[in-house]
């Protein structure tokens, strides 16, 4: 399986502090990868390094194919018409599919002669997305594409993105601080906390590998054999664990599968924990 994006020991240092520390990850080609983490975790920094807007202080980044980027707030030139935004893309790129771009926007009912400043937020997102997609990239990087959109527009943007992915070989890397937005669409997960990669792996594998355990409080410090605790908490007489590892046979624990949001939250609440599956490297 080929890799659409790989970073090795990536570090970015701003004047005061590290924005990224020793980030190594790989996104296999053809995936829709979610990059999640709280605000300030370094998501935007990582994406900026990936698309070449930022030079890392240490480490390396490699993107074998063409990359297109849609920045946070989906910037467009507000005095340009939609058609002029397409002309911008056509004139500044070696590869550009004008026919596709025009057809896509017409299909979405976005008038080409309207100034971008007069479009709705959802339409602006679609224009920005079209400018990125018409470059026929191998890797599409989207920084918080759903922020500032109403629920309907969020749904429309995500759905139309899925259509594009289904129709062409495309790897997508989407950042968000709202896990729920990405639950149904992403098949690869990267969790970034405090400038470090905590989790990177296939969503289904990750969900299969993790369990939520409930058991007597006195067992909170002695987790079942063969598991690694991601997060432990105690409420009254009950201990709750989120663990990674083999199925638990000890009858004192009751186990159930975790959902994506639980999994992400557990890792973000335990900055020391990581599931940096050699996974990413092995599969790559």
């Amino acid at each position, binding site marked *: 399986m080929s890799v659409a994006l790989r970073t090795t020991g990536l570090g970015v240092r701003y004047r005061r502090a590290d924005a990224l520390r020793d980030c190594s990850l790989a996104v296999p080609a053809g995936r829709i990868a979610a990059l999640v983490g709280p605000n300030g975790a370094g998501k935007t920094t990582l994406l900026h390094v990936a698309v*070449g*807007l930022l030079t890392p202080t240490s480490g390396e980044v490699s993107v074998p194919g063409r990359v297109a980027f849609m*920045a946070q707030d989906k910037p467009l*030139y507000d005095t340009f018409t939609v058609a*002029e935004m397409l*002309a911008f893309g056509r*004139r*500044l790129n070696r590869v550009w599919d004008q026919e596709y771009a025009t057809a896509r926007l017409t299909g979405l009912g976005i008038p080409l002669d309207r100034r971008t400043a007069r479009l709705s937020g959802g339409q602006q997102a679609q224009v920005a997305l079209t400018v990125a997609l018409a470059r026929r990239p191998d890797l599409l990087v989207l920084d918080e594409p759903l922020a500032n959109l109403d629920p309907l527009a969020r749904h429309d943007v995500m759905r139309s993105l899925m259509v594009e992915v289904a129709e062409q070989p495309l790897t997508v890397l989407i950042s968000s601080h709202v896990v729920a937005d990405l639950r149904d669409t992403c098949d690869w997960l990267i969790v970034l906390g405090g400038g470090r990669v905590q989790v990177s792996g296939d969503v289904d594998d990750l969900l299969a590998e993790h369990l939520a355990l409930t058991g007597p409080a006195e067992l909170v410090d002695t987790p079942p054999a063969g598991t690694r605790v991601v997060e432990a908490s105690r409420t009254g007489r009950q201990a709750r664990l989120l663990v990674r590892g083999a199925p638990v046979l000890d009858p004192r624990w009751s186990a159930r599968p975790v959902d994506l949001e639980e999994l992400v939250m557990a890792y973000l609440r335990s900055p020391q924990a990581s599931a940096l599956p050699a996974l990413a490297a092995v599969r790559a």
Partner: protein
Amino acid sequence: MIWLTWRQHRAQILATAVLLTALGLLLLGSAVEAKLYIAEHAPPGCPGSAPACWDLARALADRYDAVYTVFGWMPIVAPALIGAFWGAPLLGREYERGTHKLAWTQSVSVRRWLAVKLAVLGALVAAAGLTLAAMVSLWRPVFHQEDFFGNPGVFNMVGVAPAAWWLYAFMLGTAAGTLLRRTLPAMALVVAVITLTTLTLYKSSDHYAEPERIVLSDTTVLSDADSRRVSDAWVDPAGRELAAPPSGVCPHPPDVGRGDRNQRAYERCMFGKGYRFAVYFHPPSRFWRFQWTEAALLTAASVAFAGLAVRRTLRRGV
């Protein structure tokens, strides 16, 4: 890239073209009117320096002043406008709107993006400055005004000075935009620095060359009114130059109001007692030397600002 440069900056380009055209029409109209007036009212042998021509000269001077007041502030205002509206938004607005993240992630490299913008807009700005200089140089001889050199305001509107000034202002604005990353503060910085530069260059222009010295024995006024006076001093009968006017030689009561009767009487008395008056000045023949010196200084500063803008932009801190 050329298309993008035109599309993003056409408002400034067109506004500058319109303003220059309007100014050109004003100058043309005023010159035609003055020519007609000369043809109708000039006594034979005029314009010239004969007393018969004085009335005509005065009438022409009035016509000249009427138009000159319209753009007398141009040497400061025009560079400030160029810096604020051509330079400051070039990068300031991109950062402000986040569109730099759009522009700099296309196939065209940031280096090329910036190079085309600086080269195309810089060339346009310089060409506009040269246009202004050409128009003013064509217009002024109609009025027989000969103060290209002595009047620093006019000096900065002819020759290569406007082109150098405008280019300087443009690069200054661009650098301010990268440093502050916002348009409005960058504009304010441009206005402040342009004002400061004007004053500094005006003060330092005396040192562009070693001033000539002339010793006058009957007047304190230079015969060539277009000279730039640097300094002057009284010379005593023994030939020594005095740092301060000698006291106790002649009565020197202060003048009242705008008269200069006492001053003239004092000067007559001084010359009568064998004192002479030394004047250090730059003759108008140094016009081009001063033009090129000023242009060189401003161009060097422009290159420095452009380098700063390029370096800050290419360092990729988003």
